[in-house]
């Protein structure tokens, strides 16, 4: 599909040129990844404390068709 000239002009001159620069990183990428892994580990740890009856099925929705 083709963009109209108006849409193209908007994309070139509008929001994209005004997009924010990435924030100044006070933490390195490695530190941020480590922090994200730690957050996930803490969440998993909180989950591990819940006693789950064996008959409990995951809350997926799936219908055979």
């Amino acid at each position, binding site marked *: *599909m*083709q*963009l*109209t000239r*108006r*849409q193209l002009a*908007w*994309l070139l001159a*509008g*929001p*994209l040129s*005004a*997009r*924010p*620069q*990435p*924030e100044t*990183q006070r*933490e390195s*990428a490695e530190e*941020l*990844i480590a*922090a*994200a*892994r730690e*957050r*996930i580990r*803490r*969440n*998993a740890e*909180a*989950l*591990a*404390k*819940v006693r*789950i*009856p064996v008959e*409990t*099925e*995951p*809350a*997926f*929705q799936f219908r055979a068709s």
Partner: protein
Amino acid sequence: MAALPEEIFFAGIRELNSRLVKREFSAVELTRAFLDRLEKLGPRYNALALPLRDLALRQARRADDEIQRRRLRGPLQGIPFGAKDLLSVAGTPTTWGARPYANQVLDYTATVLRKLERVGAVLIGKLAMIELAGGGGYRWASASLQGPCLNPWDTSRWAGGSSSGSGAAVAAGLVCFALGSETWGSITTPAAYCGVTGLRPTYGLVSRYGAMPLSWTMDKIGPLARSAEDCGLILQVISGGDSMDPSSAGKSFYYAPQFARPLKELRVGFAPVDFDEWAEPAARHDFHKALDVLRSLGLRFREVRLPDFPYSAVAGLIIDTEGAAAFEELITSGKVEQLADARQIAGLKAGLEVSARDYLRAMRIRRMIQQELRKLLADVDILVSPARFGPASKISEPLDRSRSSAPRPKDRGLADLGAAGNLAGLPALVLPCGFADSLPIAIQLVGRPFSENTLLAVGREFQRVTDWHRRRPPAPPAA
């Protein structure tokens, strides 16, 4: 024709449609007026992703033609609205608020937008959003292709996310209503921060076909509008089964507040600690007044608390896992580095490493949460709590900064209702209920699955006796 008066931009759906049908102005005139305002003011709030002038004027001409021939299609005919930029319109850019998708043009249109077009609503623009609806977890309001979305009530504050532009555009009168989406808080937060009414529908009630996926088991699409009444009118159109959406519940919704149970028969569960301790001090007075209003309507209150589960951990782990899976190609290709928020980049990468065991554990606990909430909602019809405990945060501050030096209350009350309600797929209605530090605050009503008519009936009565939803923000900032 003379310029339309300012109050038109803050009128509700029924009023606008009635004036269109009476030919006080045409749909084209109304659309042009909204488009001019959206294009002029939208960028000042960083709320506009893309104006759709040509499409909108085509739709408006069709609405005028049909109104003239008395082919009336209901109250949304000729009404200008905006859509969060995660909803696809065939042939126009759909950026998902994220730089890696800045040039994305999809060849299909979201089901909700096709449904709105069918009843004559006029899509005038795509609205800004947090990149990838916040997948991975963002730290700054600037995590968006348009930059931080500014709150029309105070432009040093954030509009909320991830449906940021939807909240800001409705509050500032740039659109009559907007569509947003919620995985965890993305409709309720901008609605609360911007002082507009927001409805998160029951999971599965509204088709997500044509919407960016973040979490297949938690994503919902819903309206942000001027009133509960308007939310009901919009939901009636956008709800319903869709074979293109595997999560569709196959149910329709007919807005019928007149047939809702009398308010005096409804039992409301609440936790005093939410209003006395969790709420920020500046917000407590108006939150309590909101409870008084609900009591004055005849609702019967009883104290409740949520069953003890690690709600945030469960929701976080599910969204991390599903979000990383949805964006696996973005992450593994390295294009994820183009996102604006460094924490979000790291969160998406780490999400790929969640073990199947942990994800399944989260989904099993989710089942338990669903069952326990079903029991809780057998004793009460509605849960009420602050939608957010305080007003909008400052743009200049990270979103994870604690806003209070006071120790967190020991009793969690319904503090986790946001996570719990989203995990169980429950509907929520956000109602503006006052101000704190001159910024809007709101309560949320949460009900059983598919109980939207009950929530909307209470919301409609609440808004009949209050005027918080009619308040307008100050004049927009200069260019």
